[in-house]
């Protein structure tokens, strides 16, 4: 009984707790665990969105800047084998979406994918998560992952 109770408490705690850092893991030279304080030291960027007539200004760091810090190939280095890599963005509730490295690199395409930590100048909270992605150029909002906890880089290249 006590075990069940403990398990329930742990599960409840897991979902109720906001993670205070984002992990950059997988096939990277330098795995990172980034808090909001760490992200504050990166080059900052903003994205303005309108949803149901309500405007929100998200601030954070372009995802490609974070990946650069983790040693993920960018620009001229993003060729050959590196081009079969992808990035899995994972949320606290198990939600996952995928981006290819190519679509994250400004040398390839003028995309905007922000790893945001504030909305309208305030730290995000609750169902937004402490961190989220904002992908304003996507038509639906499905890849603008809320409650973001982990960015995993995976090399896909398969044997012929």
């Amino acid at each position, binding site marked *: 009984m006590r075990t069940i109770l403990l398990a329930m408490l742990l599960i*409840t705690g897991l*979902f109720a707790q906001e993670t205070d850092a984002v992990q950059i893991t997988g096939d990277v030279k330098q795995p990172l665990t980034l808090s909001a304080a760490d992200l504050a030291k990166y080059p900052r960027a903003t994205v303005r969105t309108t*949803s*149901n*007539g309500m405007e929100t200004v998200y601030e954070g760091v372009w995802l490609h800047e974070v990946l650069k810090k983790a040693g993920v190939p960018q620009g001229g280095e993003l060729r050959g084998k590196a081009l079969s890599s992808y990035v899995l963005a994972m*949320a606290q509730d198990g939600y996952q979406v995928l981006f290819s490295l190519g679509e994250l690199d400004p040398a390839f395409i003028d995309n905007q994918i922000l790893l945001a930590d504030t909305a309208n100048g305030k730290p995000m909270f*609750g169902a937004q998560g402490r961190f989220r992605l904002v992908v304003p150029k*996507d038509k*639906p909002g499905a890849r603008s992952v*809320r409650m973001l906890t982990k960015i995993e880089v995976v090399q896909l290249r398969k044997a012929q």
Partner: protein
Amino acid sequence: MKEAILFVAVTALAADFEWNLPKGFPKPVVPADNPMSAAKVELGRYLFYDKRISVNGKQSCGSCHRQELAFTDGLARAAGTTGELHPRSSMSLVNVAYAPTLTWANPTLTSLEEQALGPLLNTAPVELGLKGREEVFLGELRRDPVYQQLFKKVYPGTANPFTLGNVTKTLAAFERTIISMRSPYDRYRWGGEPDALSPAAKRGELIFFSSERGGCFQCHEGWNFSEIRYEGGHDGPDDRAMTGAFLNTGVSHYAAPNRGIYEFTGQPQDIGKFRAPTLRNIELTAPYMHDGSMATLEDVIAHYAAGGKYPHANQSKVIRPLQLSQQDRRDLIEFLKSLTDRDMLRDPRWSDPWAGKPH
């Protein structure tokens, strides 16, 4: 010159209405031919609650849209002034100004002015039963000193302002003002008050907005928990592309006349598709669903957790079995209760002006 004076008068009248919305919320759309004015809204309040609008003097608009129940009636199916039952449940009027289409399942009805004619004149079933009695009712308005003063103020320079068209315009203007954006959840999410929600409601929010766990937000989207239109239009890319504004959620067998938008489109793929209404004040609007077939929020959550009750080829792919513990369900309900705007239920701007007065 005369026109110029009239224009100035109309502009002044329109300019005296303020929406007073909390910061960040968009203004609703107002038709160009029915501008808002404080006097029109006040006249609309008198008309909305006037029982002389019904054939037997027993009901007003406010009978099926009661302020204390977030402008619903507490019944599974609405009952008209002569006791005839409507096939569907009265919808809340809260934030109706933002609704792109009106009623449960009419994709063609987009104007509140036009909608107001329905309950007034419908005969199958009779709602207020005004059909054939319009002139009698307008005559009563013309003789009432309250209305003599208000109609003159709202529609100046008109030989006969007592027309059915002006009645429905005025009712629509009043209905547009019934706006709820001040619930505990609003204060928590947009008002900088982290303690406005209980820990249970905060956990419920995570389930509501998680497509893995609840996914409720996929149909009850955005700040109004329903699709909206607002001043300035739509957002362009629209989640409706994925879910559709009207959905079959496996609520019933969908027998006539409750076949959803199929009643209007005649397309078999539209059978069972009904609006996803706003969830604001949902705590007060039981029983639930288009047919009032679910008595409690617990029943509604059990319905969705089971992935729907009556499997149908048109059932939305968003509806699928969910893993929700008893605690999760309680948390979701706490979250839904945080959408109740208690001030709205007592706000004198929307209360019955005839209360306690003979008329």
